[in-house]
């Protein structure tokens, strides 16, 4: 291993950032793929891998990808919720790999909501 220079500290931190973002729970955006039995049957797994590939491709360290159970709207699966920091979550439905890519490029990275695929803004709260 080489001796570190001071600027190397930032490089290492950068490389490790994604991991840390996942652990620290911060991050710019959070994508939740709903993966109940219904979701998986409808192809949620593919959607999830697509998002994961996109994250890697864009080196998007501050995007958290997570899964959840069935969102209740089984007919519109596969579904995903995108939540930008400080904004209300947006639910997308009837996803395909292309749609997922588009959502990632537009909503996650640029902050522009993709109206066409969106179901609703906001989410239910459990008391």
């Amino acid at each position, binding site marked *: *291993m080489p001796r570190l220079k001071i600027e190397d*500290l930032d490089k*290492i931190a950068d490389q*490790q950032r*994604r991991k840390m973002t996942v652990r620290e*729970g911060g*991050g710019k955006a*959070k994508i939740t793929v709903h993966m*109940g039995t219904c979701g998986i049957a409808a192809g949620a797994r593919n959607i999830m891998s697509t998002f994961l590939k996109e994250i890697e491709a864009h080196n998007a360290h501050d995007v958290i*990808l997570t899964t959840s159970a069935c969102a209740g709207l089984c007919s519109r699966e596969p579904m995903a919720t995108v939540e930008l920091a400080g904004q209300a979550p947006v639910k997308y439905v009837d996803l395909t790999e292309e749609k997922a890519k588009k959502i990632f490029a537009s909503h996650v990275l640029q902050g522009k909501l993709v109206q066409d695929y969106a179901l609703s803004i906001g989410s239910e709260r459990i008391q």
Partner: protein
Amino acid sequence: MKQYRLQVMVCAGTGCVSNHSFELKEALDREIKKHNLQNETEVVYTGCNGFCGAGPIVVVQPDGIFYQLLKVTDIPHLVEEHLLKGRPVKKNLYTPPAEKTPIPKMADIPFFSDQTLIALRNRGMIDPEKIDDYIARGGYKALAKVLTSMKPDEVMSEIKASGLRGRGGGGFPTGVKWETCKKAHGDTKYVICNADEGDPGAFMDRSIIEGDPHAVIEGMIIGAYAIENVHQGYIYVRMEYPLAIKRFQIAIQQAREYGLLGKNIFAKGFDFDLDVRRGAGAFVCGESTALMASIEGRPGEPRAKYIHTVEKGLWDCPTCLNNVETWVNVPQIILKGAKWFSSVGTGDVSIDPWGGSKGTKVFSLAGKVNNTGLVEVPMGISLGDIVYKIGGGIREGKKFKAVQTGGPSGGFIPESMLDIPVDYEELTKIGSMMGSGGMVVCDEENCMVDMAKYFLKFTQEESCGKCIPCREGTKRMLDILERITIGEGTEEDLLLLEELSNMIVESSLCALGGSAPNPVLTTLKYFREEYEAHVKNKKCPAKICRQLLTYTIDQKICLEIGHGCGVCKKNCPDAAIIGERKTVHYIDPVKCGKCGACYDVCNFNAIIIE
């Protein structure tokens, strides 16, 4: 670089390891592969999470789902449900006592949410065996800052201004200590990290080392830089902490490979290296002079400190010794500034370094509380908050009696003083001390005489035996306590105990002896009536001191429910139980050896203890 969707953080602190967390990881890896999740899930070891009572602990990120008390058999279900399907497994979540719904997220559990993390900021976040993880969390940035933009004096004044005080127990202002060491004559100086944590029930140092060893190393490098003429440091770890020693050795190796230890650190012309020294586990070796003697290879015995170790310490060279927790605070103070640090805590340290307690303190919470484990709280928080909020109150809804702080050198604090803030001076004032941070909670079922005897027995056994007051005095104190607990104590004994305690405090060679009577003195002060009950009435109100109890048989239950079954008679080793089968049994109080066997075997709860 590979990106994972999920991070499964397996706690690898000693507590969880002894509860099979290594096996958990193996099972996790196996199951993840089975479900073909290995490309999106990473299983990581972390340092201690502090909530050791709930171990083994696994936290699933990014959501921070906190699993407790896991078994290997729980893993297949957990992987399938949570990792694959995204549904947290309820039965393994934490449920607060007296509630029914579990709290899935770690951050929502009061044990964690009420803590303020400075020393433990990386806990559960990094793999302690990976230096890159530490750097990713801002590690070694403070060192870079110090070496590029700060003069040693500036570092010193920053530490002084922060009001950081020794976390090992004494609470000596760290900045003042560093400055004295810097001013001491000598071309060779040393820094030492005291990781010889010996208080029974205290494990914060171990936890920090196991979870974040690089933070200690970084703190020590900064300290060495500030004090100047320091090129060698030692970390004194007790042999009972093999994992801590291993983590330190790995961390030192990694830091050396990165050039963060050794010659010419960051090409700034500063040399410093570290070595681990293992202690053989004598409690007294936590005392600075004894510790240094031990490093030098001599018997670990303290010496008079009229000439301080900062002037003549290791090999008679000026030596700056600080506790693990103290060192860990240093990088954070440098990074975030003295003001940020001193904004937490009590008092004002801008004029008098002893004027207040700043920052946070890690306590290991043990005893009769619901949540036992490691907690980091801001200075100034009340003892009550620690016991009730973080600790979750007393187990089984029993009544609080006292909290013992500061380990065997500390004292017992009664309920009336629960609103006392955690502050060096405040605790000392009431006869206890901050100590290294042990905190044992006693409930109504604890006999205070017995508790005092327990702690005194520990110090008496751990006394090095060098000076007469500690060697002879503590043994005589223990003799008296022994007499009291078996009902042979007299009222004169109490006075004698008090006198002897005070004399030991005044005349012992080192702080171990000087503080050994504290548990006795505080219980005598706050719980004197319990002592008097033992001495005058020959009764133990908490029903702990066996020799003071009387065993009788409830005749009604014995005859009517048990029909004089005679099990007790068969099991009595002293043949003290009289009575034929199917008749009432009696206990002969003269013969009764008070062993309690009858109580244990009686199926009808007919034995009454008073």
